[in-house]
């Protein structure tokens, strides 16, 4: 143990570096987590602006964005939101900050590797950003980089894809680091079944990151080799097969949905017991369902390819396995509701965001079942129904969980309290805007509006108009929420050690935590979420 080291907050400058370098060079998991969080939210806002631009363009087709520019804007919107914001999302920001604290450790297992992963993230982000401006133009393939178009287009795919490759490497290293940390650095007495639920989900996510991301990496390598050396594995004219690209791509990108959603579920499982003042219902079921989602969810990628010319046998198999994923997801939702049941519920903003998560994610999941089934998929594939569905899952799911996590852990991270009223008002506006924006997409898609088109027949105009108005309302809500948080980070009241009455280890140390978190490594002698004492 360090003897007389002072217990200053983690962000107080120390060490040989000053200013920004003291952050970039830091191996403190909390500093790294905060840096990720700032980067993520920056990219989030860029993505939001691009999204607003898309919506604006859709109510006056051709007036604002030309067809080519429109393709670039929605591609960049997707690439930024998915690869720079929501996939790294919760694990890199909140996982970094809280995982070691929640298991009673001073840091992750490999602090320098953690810093390296952060640098890789920055490098990948820089490459993606650069690809927008160098010759050839921004990617216009959509975020999926489908071959053979991605091999032939003049746009600067090589650089964007290299960027995503580097981001993937960063993600692998983060997952590896977290899984090792959970195996090796749990405090004495912190047995597997005493782990907070967030840790369980980060653990399952870590495995998905390790076992799925390499498949994306090699796929991206094939694209680069195809563009640079003319290797034609996905090019029919050279004997290749574009459908194989889709297989490899979705082998990663469906599990990637769980990389986004599992930790989100972890956050929800943290928030609900605290604000319901009750122990989580069915601890083991919730824990194992995380592992179940991760392992079954790995093998359902084919549902993205029902209309791509896959064999019937494969279509039936994938459709069936897709239904299986609903089981562990259902278990989770059931257990959350059971936890809330007869709890003494405190309706503070973290819980409000968590409840919105359950509601919106359920809609996303149910519509997912509709398109995961083979027959309706043939009708809805490639329509706005899909766009609505994945925005409900990703924004309504993962996005709202990030907002829940932000509000729940904000006092711990910054040492300040935020104002409850603007948070709630912001939530209300956001929630209304969200549903206007994305629910109209279900209707549009059901009526047959195809996605990714910049123009459409007039009968779809009303739907698009409602959706666009929704996007403005949503943006207003977001502005209120983030203004409140940023203001409070500087001017808020001092936060106490445990503002919510949480039972996790993070609430037993000062807000904000000092370097190395614990004066003395705690010894754990009881299960988590024990609200009785």
């Amino acid at each position: 143990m360090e003897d007389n080291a002072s217990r200053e907050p983690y962000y107080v400058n120390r060490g040989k570096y000053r200013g920004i370098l003291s952050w970039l060079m830091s191996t403190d998991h909390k500093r790294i987590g905060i840096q990720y969080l700032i980067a993520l939210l920056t990219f989030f806002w860029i993505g939001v602006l691009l999204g607003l631009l898309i919506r604006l363009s859709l109510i006056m087709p051709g007036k604002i964005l030309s067809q080519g520019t429109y393709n670039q804007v929605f591609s960049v919107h997707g690439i930024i939101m998915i690869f720079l914001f929501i996939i790294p999302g919760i694990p890199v920001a909140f996982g970094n900050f809280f995982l070691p604290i929640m298991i009673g450790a001073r840091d992750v297992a490999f602090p320098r590797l953690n810093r390296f992963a952060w640098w890789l993230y920055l490098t990948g982000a820089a490459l993606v950003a650069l690809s927008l401006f160098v010759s050839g133009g921004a990617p216009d393939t959509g975020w999926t980089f489908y071959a053979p178009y991605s091999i032939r287009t003049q746009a600067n795919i090589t650089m964007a894809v290299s960027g995503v490759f580097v981001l993937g490497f960063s993600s692998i290293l983060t997952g590896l680091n977290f899984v090792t940390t959970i195996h090796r650095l749990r405090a004495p007495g912190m047995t597997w079944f005493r782990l907070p639920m967030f840790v369980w989900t980060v653990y399952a996510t870590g495995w998905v990151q390790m076992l799925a991301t390499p498949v994306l990496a090699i796929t991206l390598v094939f694209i680069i080799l195809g563009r640079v050396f003319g290797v034609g594995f996905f090019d029919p004219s050279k004997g290749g097969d574009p459908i194989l690209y889709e297989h490899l791509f979705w082998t990663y990108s469906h599990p990637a949905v769980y990389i986004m959603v599992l930790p989100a579920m972890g956050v929800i499982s943290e928030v609900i017991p605290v604000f319901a003042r009750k122990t989580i219902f069915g601890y083991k079921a919730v824990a194992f369902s995380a592992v179940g989602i991760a392992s079954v969810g790995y093998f359902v990628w084919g549902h993205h390819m029902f209309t791509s010319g896959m064999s019937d046998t494969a279509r039936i198999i994938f459709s069936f396995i897709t239904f299986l994923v609903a089981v562990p997801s259902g278990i989770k939702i059931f257990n959350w509701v059971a936890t809330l049941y007869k709890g003494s519920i405190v309706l503070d903003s973290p819980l409000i965001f968590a409840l919105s998560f359950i509601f919106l994610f359920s809609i996303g999941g149910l519509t997912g079942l509709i398109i995961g089934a083979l027959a309706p998929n043939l009708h809805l594939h490639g329509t706005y129904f899909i766009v609505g569905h994945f925005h409900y899952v990703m924004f309504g799911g993962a996005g709202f969980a990030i907002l829940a996590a932000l509000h729940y852990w904000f006092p711990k991270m910054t040492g300040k309290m935020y104002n409850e009223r603007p948070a709630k008002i912001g939530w209300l506006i956001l929630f209304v805007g969200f549903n206007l924006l994305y629910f109209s997409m279900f209707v549009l898609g059901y009526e047959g509006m195809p996605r990714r088109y910049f123009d459409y027949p007039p009968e779809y105009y009303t739907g698009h108009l409602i959706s666009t108005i929704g996007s403005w309302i949503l943006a207003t809500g977001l502005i209120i929420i983030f203004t409140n948080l940023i203001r409070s980070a500087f001017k808020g009241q001092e936060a106490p050690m445990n503002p919510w009455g949480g039972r996790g280890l993070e609430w037993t140390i000062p807000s904000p935590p000092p370097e190395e978190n614990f004066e003395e490594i705690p010894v754990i002698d009881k299960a988590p979420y024990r609200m009785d004492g």
Partner: protein
Amino acid sequence: MGKEQTGTEEHIVSYSTYAYVWLALLVLLGATIAAARIEFSRYSVLINLLIATVKALLVVVFFMHMKYEKRFLRGLLIMSLLTLGSIIALTFSDVWYR
């Protein structure tokens, strides 16, 4: 600081064990070349892959010390291989029947 288990296996593998494994690997290399030369027609690829797997096992078990590791690590290795196997199988459910 407290740690429930630290690496206790300090197993030193003798040079001769490694030498035997090395010799076995070279013999298998010879066998696989021979198998390819002799016309087994359609089975030769299968036999070659089988020999390759035996070689890989020798490397994993002895050179990579899997023999001396905890069961846990072995399980994880198998899990990764099964994952890869499932990906291949599922993709072939398309390729085969297309």
